[in-house]
């Protein structure tokens, strides 16, 4: 496993709705690259779920490496090792980043994990693992904030939080999210393509690791997911 950098388009600015066109910045990716032909780009799960699924993701990459498949796990700009500000990002900038990563690593296939399935680049065949709806992810993060505030004796509602978030951005579960992100994310639908197949949690056995209160691992689930991908790629 090798950490590498790749050139990622930078969003111009928060003012005026963002957009790309601000040049390129280096972002990190974990890679298993032995110059082989099947090359899988993995778009990580979003926010807290990325941490919960990190171990599973990397364990799947190790297994794919053993099966003769190269794989690439780029950071989303504003997350992990990224130097970009998270609150300047939008779903559009994340999609552009993942498209740039797919081109840079010459991906032949894609895998989107949970909310990552919302950020898949167009045109490549692949999979959506337990795809999450944007509205559900947002609702859950708003709810986490409401639970935390309630404990602190402050009463908040989803509607009021959302209204303020669309105007000023919002901090949810420790993530500072910009207003443009919220506005785009609320309406975001999974990329639909005949090239993409869904892998439901039932196919892996056991409960989804993104649900866990603490990050955990599950060898059997990593085996199952890697097997589905390896068989599908070599079809």
């Amino acid at each position: 496993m090798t950490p590498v950098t790749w050139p990622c388009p930078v969003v111009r600015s928060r003012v005026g709705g963002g957009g790309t066109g601000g040049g390129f910045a280096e972002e990190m990716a974990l890679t298993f690259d032995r110059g082989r032909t099947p090359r899988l780009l993995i778009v990580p799960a979003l926010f807290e779920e990325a941490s919960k699924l990190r171990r599973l993701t990397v364990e799947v990459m190790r297994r794919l490496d053993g099966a003769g498949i190269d794989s690439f796990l780029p950071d989303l700009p504003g997350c992990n090792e990224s130097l970009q500000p998270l609150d300047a990002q939008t779903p559009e900038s994340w999609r552009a980043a993942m498209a740039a990563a797919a081109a840079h690593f010459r991906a032949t296939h894609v895998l989107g994990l949970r909310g990552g399935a919302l950020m898949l680049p167009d045109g490549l065949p692949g999979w959506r693992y337990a795809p999450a709806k944007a509205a559900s992810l947002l609702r859950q993060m708003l709810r986490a904030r409401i639970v935390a505030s309630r404990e602190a004796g402050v009463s908040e509602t989803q509607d009021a939080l959302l209204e303020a978030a669309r105007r000023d951005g919002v901090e949810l579960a420790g993530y500072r999210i910009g207003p443009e992100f919220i506005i785009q994310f609320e309406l975001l639908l999974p990329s639909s393509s005949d090239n993409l197949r869904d892998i439901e949690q039932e196919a892996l056995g056991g409960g989804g690791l993104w649900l866990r209160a603490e990050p955990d691992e599950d060898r059997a689930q990593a085996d199952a997911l890697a097997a589905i991908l390896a068989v599908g790629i070599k079809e």
Partner: protein
Amino acid sequence: MIRAPRTFHTGIDVKPMSSETDLLLRRILTDVLGLKQGQAEGFTADTGLFGHLPELDSMAVAGLLTEMEDRLDIVIEDDEIDGELLESFGSLLAFAEAKRAEP
């Protein structure tokens, strides 16, 4: 703190262990808390949850409530969410059963 439906009393005996809601709720807690198979069967009405299990933070609680909505086919309102609801397995189960009984 979480306000339960008006018909609900904490501390009183919960429904028989075999109810479907009971079973589903134990499964959800198994997934969220990463329990071993069968471990959740040991939960009683007094088993403490939020405030008793350090790993059950606000994000985990939000996930738990969302899973309850999906798997129990209920809708939980913002103003129903408070600490008492999640205080114990018994209070959470009573809430879930009352919610499922709503027309």
